[in-house]
């Protein structure tokens, strides 16, 4: 294993963007199966790049756009950083330009609280909870495990209770996610799975 050649940047990029043909994909997957280091690199890169839908356009039934909101002052700061910051220097920027804020580069992502991913829950008093973002409206979407839309709700709260009119089947699996809807901004949670107790 010490002498194994690792994947090239092109192979990793092609795999992450699903651009490899079947033979190339087999080579990459066989290597990833055997190489902890390359697998670790793949995992970290996927976290940096974010959802595939944000990289390559929206896919599937669920709208899954994640755009960064760039305040004008921060955008100006980015340009200033590139143009005015001397190579190798971390010195002060010209007046009026600012370094990006601490959370600027984080992908806009909503953190779900409950039910946790993979939870088995009772159909009665099913409550969805998530952490707040700076937005006025959230959209909760609930799907069957075949992707059929069951329920969607727009709410200003970070809590949503499944209405009694929505009937879920005991033993069945469902998927849900939350999106933050604001003017020119959106953020999403990961898709969460839940199973209804029998």
């Amino acid at each position, binding site marked *: 294993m010490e002498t194994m050649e690792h994947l*090239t*940047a*092109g*192979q*990793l*990029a*092609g*795999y*992450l*963007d*699903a*651009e*490899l043909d079947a033979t190339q*994909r*087999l080579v990459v*997957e*066989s290597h*990833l*199966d055997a190489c902890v280091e390359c*697998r*670790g*690199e*793949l*995992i*970290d*890169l*996927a*976290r*940096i*790049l*974010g*959802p*595939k839908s944000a*990289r390559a356009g929206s*896919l*599937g039934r669920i709208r899954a756009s994640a755009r960064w909101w760039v305040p004008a002052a921060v955008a100006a700061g*980015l*340009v200033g*950083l*590139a*143009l005015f*910051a001397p*190579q*190798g*220097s*971390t010195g002060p920027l010209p007046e009026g330009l600012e*370094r*990006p804020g*601490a959370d600027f*580069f984080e992908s806009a992502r909503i953190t779900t609280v409950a039910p946790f*991913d993979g939870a088995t829950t009772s159909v009665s008093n099913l409550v969805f909870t998530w952490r707040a973002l700076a937005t006025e409206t959230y959209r909760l979407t609930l*799907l069957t*495990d*075949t*992707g059929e839309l069951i329920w969607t709700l727009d709410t200003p709260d970070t809590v949503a209770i499944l209405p009694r009119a929505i009937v879920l089947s005991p033993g069945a*699996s469902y*998927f849900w996610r939350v999106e933050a809807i604001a003017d020119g901004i959106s953020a999403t949670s*990961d*898709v969460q*799975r839940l199973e209804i107790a029998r």
Partner: protein
Amino acid sequence: MGPMSGSHLLGLQAVLHATDPLDQREAWAVFVREHSELLLRVARRMGGGHDAAMDRYAFVLESLQQDDFRRLRCYFADGERKFSTWLTVVVRRLCLDHHRHRYGRPQGETAASAQRRAERRNLVDLVSDELSLGALSAPGSDDPDLEIRRNEVSRALECALACLPASERLILRLRFEDDLSVPEIARATSAGSPFRLYRRIDRLLRDLKAALEESGIDDASP
């Protein structure tokens, strides 16, 4: 030529093919402006606060320019994938190089993480737990029959896993060895949406269990 935004390709070519130093300097400034967000995002990802991120950012810019933009020229010989993704890989590797130059060891490698790696359970044990085959790796008992049974189960499961296509074994490794969530696996692989992936993992586990039952193995009990 692979898929690549036209403007990114033109910008890269302008940098690499400029004959006049002033034109190249201008083209490089344009290139940096276009990709600074990506470069900063990756640099910041490695932790250590803003100053550390800016150090890495500066190191990346310097490294990309070295030897007449040798690293950027490699793009065309490396499959010509989506440029932003390719650049993300290259920049991340440069940031790791910067950390090694500075600290002389892989980032994040501590005695604790090295210990965790040494204690990492293998895929056979983890899938066995998932299939409820009994504690293959539980502290051994004095019962030789139980030990023989455990070895039989372990060998059968190892064989069943080895018969899987690499893509399916990779999904199981990411799920059980690397402890990724299903959405994270979907993000990292070509395995489809989380919906499809949940069903695929369920099917894989069912098939593995069926393969073991065909071999006469229901659990690890003698």
